[in-house]
């Protein structure tokens, strides 16, 4: 009897937390299908009485949503592929290749993790302006092509690769780059998947830097565009919910599909080595 009550309490609390977690997302989805103005009623409706796609049509055909979606996809894909290459090479070298100053450089990088990225923003803006990258995709992509966290993630995983595998390949006369691309990369696959989804989501959800460096709205990714749309269309809650759905849904689906790798990366990243 006592354990029945305990079980009811535990599961009841979990159910409550789960409802709180997903309710705003489900509500967003539901309101996005309501005709304009329908959500502003009392009691606030939970479901659209006459579901419509009008908000999405308005967003895509009139408000340039196709552009913002393309921008987001393009930026996230470019940043993810660049940082996969650069971080995996560096992470592997920090774990398995000997070179002068390796430990010191790595320690310095880890120490630099404490510096909030915003400190760099003003000089970075000037540097990119000088390079002609302000108001181009490059302004977002170039500074994000490699990152300390990504190097750390790959290094921690690469440390577990046995040295014998690399030695054996060297005996067979394989070059270092060949060893990396045909032996190490496949072994790193799980952590590279984690890194990829982490980077993609991070870039997709990023707001402050794109807001600063992309003032031309033709180049803006979804979060920046959504923020300015929501200032213009304060009253259009239904359309703003549709905009939020378009912004959130791709990453949510990606996460659900690759959840295992996301959680794995999160856990490696949270154990400082």
């Amino acid at each position, binding site marked *: 009897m006592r354990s029945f009550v305990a079980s009811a309490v*535990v599961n009841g609390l979990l159910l409550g937390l789960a409802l709180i977690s997903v309710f705003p997302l489900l509500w967003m989805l539901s309101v996005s299908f309501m005709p304009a103005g329908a959500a502003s009623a009392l009691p*606030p409706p939970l479901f659209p009485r006459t579901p419509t796609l009008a908000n999405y049509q308005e967003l895509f055909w009139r408000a340039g949503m196709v552009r913002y979606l393309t921008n987001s996809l393009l930026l996230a894909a470019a940043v993810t592929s660049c940082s996969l290459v650069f971080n995996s090479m560096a992470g592997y070298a920090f774990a398995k290749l000997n070179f*002068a100053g390796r430990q010191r450089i790595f320690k310095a990088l880890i120490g630099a993790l404490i510096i909030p990225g915003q400190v760099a923003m*003003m000089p970075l803006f000037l540097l990119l302006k000088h390079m002609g990258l302000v108001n181009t995709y490059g302004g977002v992509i170039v500074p994000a092509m490699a990152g300390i966290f990504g190097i750390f993630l790959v290094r921690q995983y690469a440390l577990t690769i046995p040295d014998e595998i690399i030695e054996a390949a060297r005996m067979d006369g394989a070059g270092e780059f060949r060893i990396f691309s045909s032996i190490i990369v496949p072994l790193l696959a799980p952590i590279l998947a984690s890194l990829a989804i982490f980077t993609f989501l991070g870039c997709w959800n990023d707001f402050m830097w794109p807001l600063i460096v992309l003032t031309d709205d033709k180049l803006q990714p979804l979060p920046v565009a*959504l923020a300015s749309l929501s200032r213009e269309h304060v009253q259009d809650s239904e359309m703003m919910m549709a905009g939020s759905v378009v912004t959130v849904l791709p990453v949510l689906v990606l996460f659900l599909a690759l959840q295992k790798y996301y959680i794995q990366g999160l*856990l490696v990243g949270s154990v400082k080595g």
Partner: protein
Amino acid sequence: MRLSAIAWGFVAPALLVIGMFFLLPVATAAVLSLTDFDIYALADLRNLRFVGFENYARVLQTPLFWQALGNTFYFVVVGVPLSIMVSLGSALLLHSRLARFKPLFRTALFAPVVTTLVAVAVVWRYLFQTRYGMVNYALGQIGVHPIDWLGDPRTAMPTIILLAVWKNFGYNMVIFLANLQAIPEEVYEAARIDGASTFQQFVHVTLPMLAPTLLLVGIITTAGYFQLFAEPYVMTQGGPLRSTVSVLYFMYEEGFKWWNFGTASTVAMLLFVLIFAVTWGFTRVTKNEAGA
């Protein structure tokens, strides 16, 4: 020797990017904070003057900076413990042997973490809308009068804190859960044999075993919460009565609205020093406790 050169080839691209687009700008920010870099210097560098610590003196005499600092501290001091408590609580629930449908619950509780902050901030604004918002409607059912959540300086920051906790607790929950699962069952067994109640087991077994994780999570969460920006930008634009202006929001306006890069860099450096000091303080306190 040759191998060393090849190894450098492996790390060079990443180090170049990090050095040029992160470390160099950080060092430059320190220099910039000692200059009067403004919109005229942006047009022509000859208008740039070295002013020593003038910016620091002026920022520290600006009432809005202190208000921003106070608002940020409010967000951190209330938001961080609240976040960590919800994270730990939900991790304990998920870890419980009595819990059913664990993977489903875990995914549901984690979902807000991967959502886009700007988008959910927009959603939050409508949920907390005074007249037609779901929250006020629900509260109305139990007789609470409508609250102007984002329009009242007393409730605007708490509303933002609620959003942050809702959005972030799943992240630390997953970390806690992994560490809970790593505690060997025998330790609890021994405690039970000694007659420890569930609560005593939590205080004397679980908490001490989680201490290093709690410290790490505390540091990372605090550093993150000091960087409050997008929530007020989207939900309140710093208002009402500047009650949600954060340090970064202040920096953003100085830097990219008024183009006072000298002042903005000063604010950024102050934030950095603050985060560094708090992190250092955290590790100091725990070291002392471990030593005692």
